[in-house]
């Protein structure tokens, strides 16, 4: 099976290539940005002498680049997405890039797609606190009211389903929670945000739906075995820590952080004031907090991984061990800094 991994130069991409090789998928094309450092990928392949790992440099928004990458591939793992930038830039790189890829896949019958989506596509603002989110939970009804990342991931996934239904290619969207591990972001927005040198702890006792990067990559490989079994699959580990618990460990094991815990009702009041001010002032300050975003991120939900388990996924790295490795990585980084 010839695999293409877009975003192979990224945090999850590198781990996915490693898991593919471990599962014996030795014919892998890595699609990376021009100028990306692929040293770690090249080193990884040295441990698999029989493997045929190819590097294709290009831009996902450029039709010719994507067409050439997809050619003769059996399955595409589509990980490439923008993690930062303006709303328009994120949309361009995530959604338009996906459209280019799906156009190329649609023109090559038989090629399957495993899309990496996000928990951010769920419409959780109207759910009650602590509600369980599984694959039957409705998609976000007002994605433009969310942050630009969630909006672009929502449109990416809806576009994916539109194409899948129109062209009938095998495809599944995996929705990971917070992907953690060495090289990932140390503090998810679900835990809290830094403001003027102070860290606002906003997640409190909410479960932090982490997916250790190895476990997440394993989920992608397992899902690819039968990409027609389900249209969407949640990806998160068992026994998630609480947001406050994760923050405590981060402060103890990585670095001291001046934090203030803000209870959810208080954060809703702050968000309402921030949004009102932003509207009244004609956007003089952006509405970084709004009641809708606050409800989506910090009201608190539980996420099910039952479907993921039903397709044969096993959590390779226990939650506690994953956290230990993640925090050890950041402790070393902070120590060097």
């Amino acid at each position: 099976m010839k695999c293409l991994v877009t975003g192979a130069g990224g945090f999850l991409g590198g781990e996915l290539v490693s898991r593919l090789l471990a599962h014996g998928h030795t014919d892998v094309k890595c699609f990376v940005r021009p100028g990306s450092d692929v040293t770690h990928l090249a080193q990884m392949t040295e441990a698999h002498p029989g493997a045929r790992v190819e590097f294709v440099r290009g831009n996902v928004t450029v039709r010719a680049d994507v067409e050439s990458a997809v050619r003769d591939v059996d399955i595409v793992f589509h990980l490439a997405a923008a993690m930062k930038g303006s709303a328009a830039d994120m949309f361009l790189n995530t959604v338009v890039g996906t459209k280019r890829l799906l156009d190329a896949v649609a023109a090559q019958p038989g090629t399957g797609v495993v899309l990496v989506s996000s928990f951010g596509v769920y419409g959780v603002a109207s759910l009650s606190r602590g509600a369980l989110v599984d694959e039957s939970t409705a998609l976000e009804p007002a994605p433009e009211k969310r942050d630009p990342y969630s909006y672009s991931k929502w449109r990416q996934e809806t576009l994916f389903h539109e194409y899948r239904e129109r062209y009938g290619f095998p495809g599944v969207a995996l929705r990971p929670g917070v992907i953690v591990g060495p090289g990932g972001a140390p503090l998810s927005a679900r835990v809290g945000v830094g403001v003027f040198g102070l860290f606002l702890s906003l997640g409190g006792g909410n479960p932090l739906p982490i997916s250790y990067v190895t476990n997440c990559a394993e989920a992608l490989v397992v899902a690819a075995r039968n990409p027609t079994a389900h249209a969407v699959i949640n990806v998160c580990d068992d026994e998630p820590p609480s947001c406050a618990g994760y923050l405590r460990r981060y402060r103890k094991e990585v670095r001291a952080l001046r934090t203030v815990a803000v209870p959810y009702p208080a954060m809703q009041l702050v968000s309402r004031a921030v949004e009102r001010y932003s509207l009244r002032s004609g956007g003089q300050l952006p509405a970084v907090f709004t009641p809708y975003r606050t409800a989506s991120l910090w009201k608190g939900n539980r996420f099910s991984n039952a479907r993921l388990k039903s397709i044969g996924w096993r959590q390779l790295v226990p939650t506690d061990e994953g956290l230990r490795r993640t925090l050890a990585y950041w402790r070393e980084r902070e120590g060097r800094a």
Partner: protein
Amino acid sequence: MKTLRVAVVGCGKIADAHVGELQKMPGVDIVGVCDLESLMAEQLARRFGLSHFTDDFEQLLATRTPDVVHITTPPQSHVALATRALEAGAHVYVEKPLAMDVAGVDAIVGRARETGRKLTVGHSFHFDPPALEMRRLIAGGAIGEPVHVESHFGYSLAGPFGAAILGDPRHWVHTLPGRLFHNNVDHMLNKVLEFVTDPEPAVHAFATRRRPHAFGDVRDRMQDELRVTLLGKSVTGYATFTSHVSPVSHFLRVYGSRGILHVDYNIRTVVLEPGPTLPSQIGRLLPAFKRAGEYRRQGWRNLRSFARADFQFFAGMHHLIERFYESIRSDAPLPIAYDEMRRLAVVMDTIWAQIAPRGGES
């Protein structure tokens, strides 16, 4: 007030600013947004609550019949889109740079004149609050006669746009005659040309690349430091574009026969350095206090503006659009004269010719 029907073509990052400012203005109806990539048009419409979006420019012109079209696409498409919009009877606001070269500027301006429609270009900093304050002070004789100007424009290649340029050798910036500079130095040069008013000032430009070689392709040929002198008969100018100086500054100094004005576009201050009024060493002691007091006074003024919600990031663009629309509604003079657009394009063409890398590199 006549309501103007406005369309925006090109739905990238800067289109957000246009739509955001237009939505604050009375007498403006955004009738449609357009992008070759329909998803980009869709996202702009959805995020700003607009009802009509399309990927068909002709259809936009025909069915939405805009009075004004804002063109926020890459510069390579400006001539085609602007001339077509003018022919369709719309007035046109084009983001900078107006065109790829002086021939392109002539084509757009010529079509505006032929059709009797109006045209402006996105020289938004020209209408930023410090620029307006500077003109008021100079008109009041604060510095006497201008003698020399220095324009400084800092740029960060570490920002999202810089990352996009350096991340892709086929980025459209690499196909502009003046590459990185071409997309930015309107804001640097027009400040100098406001004072160096000669029809054809002497231009001397120097450019270099300070970054190390990293890619082995067109990106390594992109220069990132530019210095330009402009020599007029009565006023001279010096302009700096830098992408390595930190902090990333944006300021203008106007040297006059009786004082010097320091105009800072980032912190929005306009501070006058007058000639000495007291003799000798005393004359050296007091001005520092006076200058500190002036900065404090302007800090408070900015704070009051902020409290009135009148300290907006895109204030210059807002003022420029207002003046352009006023010009359309009441046939008032244009905010930017066509001759100024052409003079700037001539200077830019001259600079690109002078800094072109030698040895056959393109």
